[in-house]
């Protein structure tokens, strides 16, 4: 039997078909988790967002009219749910984290005395990159996550966020410039 399309699954979910809901969940839970995890930075919060987003999706399936693709519709719900959760959480932790749009890149860099083996350095570099991504401002981080982590095109990302593809391209470029600056010394050390 042919595999049902996402559109067909949403129609079946709207008709209260629980097996269709489960199939949709199995197909897209990882994508939802990756976005939520990279936007929120921890597993427990990300899983809460996944649950909340899928509840919304199950309830909203009947309202899906196909004006956007299922992919952009789905990521819009997940992204908005994650950003809402992050904003709610930030009310309680602002004093601890400070201004996230003005992170201190120096905190991310290793001291010059460190000379770990190459493999460990790469692993540590990857960790520092993830930390730097977490310190990007919300707008830049969201675009970065949708394009880089989930592989959405600039046009799809623009549809998800309600911005132009040019703005997507610009935000990505500046996100990368920031990451590059944050990690410059790491890259230099790694290439030596």
């Amino acid at each position, binding site marked *: 039997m042919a595999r049902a399309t996402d559109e067909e699954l949403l129609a079946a979910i709207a008709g209260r078909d629980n097996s269709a*809901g489960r199939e949709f969940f199995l197909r897209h839970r990882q994508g939802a988790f990756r976005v939520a*995890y990279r936007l929120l930075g921890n*597993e427990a919060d990300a899983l809460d967002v996944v649950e909340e987003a899928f*509840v919304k999706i199950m309830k909203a399936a009947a309202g899906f009219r196909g004006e956007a693709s299922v992919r952009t519709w789905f990521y819009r719900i997940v992204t908005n749910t994650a950003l809402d959760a992050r904003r709610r959480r930030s009310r309680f932790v602002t004093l601890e984290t400070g201004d996230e749009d003005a992170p201190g890149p120096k905190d991310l860099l290793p001291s010059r005395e460190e000379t770990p083996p190459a493999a460990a350095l790469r692993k540590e570099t990857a960790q520092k990159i993830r930390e730097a991504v977490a310190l990007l401002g919300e707008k830049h981080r969201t675009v970065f*996550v949708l394009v880089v982590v989930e592989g959405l095109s600039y046009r799809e990302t623009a549809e998800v966020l309600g911005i132009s593809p040019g703005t997507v*391209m610009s935000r990505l470029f500046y996100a*990368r410039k920031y990451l590059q600056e944050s990690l410059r010394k790491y890259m230099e050390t790694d290439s030596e």
Partner: protein
Amino acid sequence: MSDCKKFARAISAFVDGQLDDRQTRGLEAHLAGCPSCRAVLESWRAANEAARDVPAVDEKHWEEIWQRVEKRSAGAQTPTTLRHSAVAALSLWRAVWKGAAVTALAASILLAAYFLMRGDGAAGRPASTGGRFEVVSIEVEAPDYDVFVMAPEEGELPVIWLEGGA
């Protein structure tokens, strides 16, 4: 150097696979002779790889999440398990629709009265024309009402009343 600045945005789009063939050829020609831009490209690719790496979630966790999703979404769609806020919202909508139906009915009656007084019967057909009492048939959204119109003598106000309705 000015070339590198020009190509920086193209490298970002290239990493995302968003350049067309012509743009890609132009960038690759530049990269072939520019170690600095190649280093930028590699660092951005490394950032992509690192960002894509997320922890694996235990299947048991996924199952628990799905069970909660199923329960919560099914509960919201079943009228008998509606939350208090949903019940209140539903009652409000009923009241709004009822009000709208009565308003439409009243407007229809006034129109009927107007046309009756003009005597052309455009809004309804008199069921009885004996004397001054008229029963008017009007198609409205509230079928539970019967409309009665007392046609007055010339110069008097018409009397209109309803019978029935919820």
